[in-house]
């Protein structure tokens, strides 16, 4: 069973590019990436990706699709040197707590030696892996905030 995907912007099919998740549940605005997540109108819980049942209170009516904030704090990270085919080793992944409370895992656009714990980061769009036929997989990832 696959989770219901949020109604995002129509995935634009460019040659040699695919998006993950396929529904491309984000919007670009002012150079930042705004993920589309769930907000429960009954208890206020938020989650990503969007879904039709609230994991917190169990209600299954009226779940809203909302933009999550594009900024957050890097909780921890690891630099991966052994990975499945197509991932650009070495690469860094990290857990980021967005400023509105949702935690995301994603690739971070820096080497581990350049990063510190609790750094402020923002969401951006970028290539996360390359498939055997050369197709680039584009998703959300993190970049240090320049400010």
């Amino acid at each position, binding site marked *: 069973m*696959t989770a219901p995907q949020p109604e995002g912007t129509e995935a634009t099919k460019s040659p040699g590019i695919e998006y*993950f*998740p396929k529904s491309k549940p984000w919007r670009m605005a002012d150079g930042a990436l705004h993920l589309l997540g769930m907000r429960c109108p009954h208890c206020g*819980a*938020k*989650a*990503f*990706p969007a879904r039709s049942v609230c*994991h917190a209170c169990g209600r299954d009516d009226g779940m809203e699709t909302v933009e999550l904030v594009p900024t957050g704090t890097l*909780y*921890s*990270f*690891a*630099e*991966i*040197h*052994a*990975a*499945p085919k197509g*991932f650009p080793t*070495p*690469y860094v*992944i*990290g*857990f980021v*707590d967005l400023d509105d*409370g*949702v*935690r995301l*895992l*994603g*690739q971070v656009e820096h080497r*581990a030696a350049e990063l510190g*714990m609790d750094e402020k980061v923002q969401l951006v769009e970028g290539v*996360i*892996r390359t498939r055997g036929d050369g197709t680039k997989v584009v*998703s959300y990832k993190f970049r240090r905030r320049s400010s």
Partner: protein
Amino acid sequence: MMNNAYVAGVGMTRFCKMPERSFEEIGQEAVLKALKDAGVERDAIEEVFCGSALTGRSMGQRVLRDLGMTGRPITNVENACSSGSTALREACTAIAAGRAETVLVLGIDQLTRLGGGTIPGVETDLDPNLGMVMPALYAMRARRYMQETGATRVHLAKVAVKAHEGGQLNPYAQFRNPVTVEEVLASRMVADPFSLLMCCPTGDGAAAAVVTTKKKAAALGKKLIRVAGTALQSGLYKPGFRDLTRSELTERTAKLAYEQAGIGPEDVDLAEIHDAFVIAELMYYEALGFCPPGGAPAFLESGATRINGSKPVNPSGGLLCRGHPVGATGIAQVCEAVWHLRGEAGERQVEGAKVALTHCTGGGVSGLDHGSCAINILVA
């Protein structure tokens, strides 16, 4: 109601890479050893529970067919790293329910069939698609743990050194060599801050146990070893902040297991815990109540968890050194516990052990601490 099952016999293969053997043959070796150890004929087995995670379907039937042991109820159990431990819990339930008196539990996996590397993630889940691998999940725990407690990579390396102290005395272990802190730190990087020797190896193996009633166990003439507690929990979903330096899931499962057994962490004479990666051992010292939160690095350095220490942990070498054929691990821990409780553990014997705890937890599911955790407490 769950604590009237007794382990009458155990047996396992060595854990190592065995690509030349079929998994059926590997499983059969463990089954035959357990039956022989218990002193029961195959016809005495009324039900079978088989835990495996990554090798195939209908594993119990495939292993037992050529032993002429199909025809009775066989339940195949998949619960990631806790598959074998979960199968033991189900066997205890079958006995407690009065449905069977003598039950065979098998744990098995053959990871060399997967072609090496990290265990593949599940493709519908978010994290593996974004580049998550299991070593990285634990590496992120480790980095945060080091930040908050002041632990260093040397502490992490010392966990591996201790694992190899046990493993070199264990004829069933995948690695039987001692290692130094320097060698662990210098092994190739897998997921910074983890080098290769800070991660459990991939390998193959099977372990089996015969579980029965007190009356039957007594009649078999073996030392009585009771499953005094058997607890299973699953991870709670948190789409937001989670303290990755603690294992809420293991804490919750341990509380249930201790309550069932009527004991506390101070009563545990030896523990076989899920040290899939070095940080896991430190975190689980704390989650199982062996030392206070943040106290694990000092507890390790005190020598308490070495074979001759006050709280021996993983005298077998643990997952880091004995190896981790996923579904087999929980029952291999039970084998190790039984050998110590009987005084049959040879050079790595924990003297006078009367209470043993086995702990498995794993299954990478995005948003959960882990998929599951299973803890069994065996009392002689």
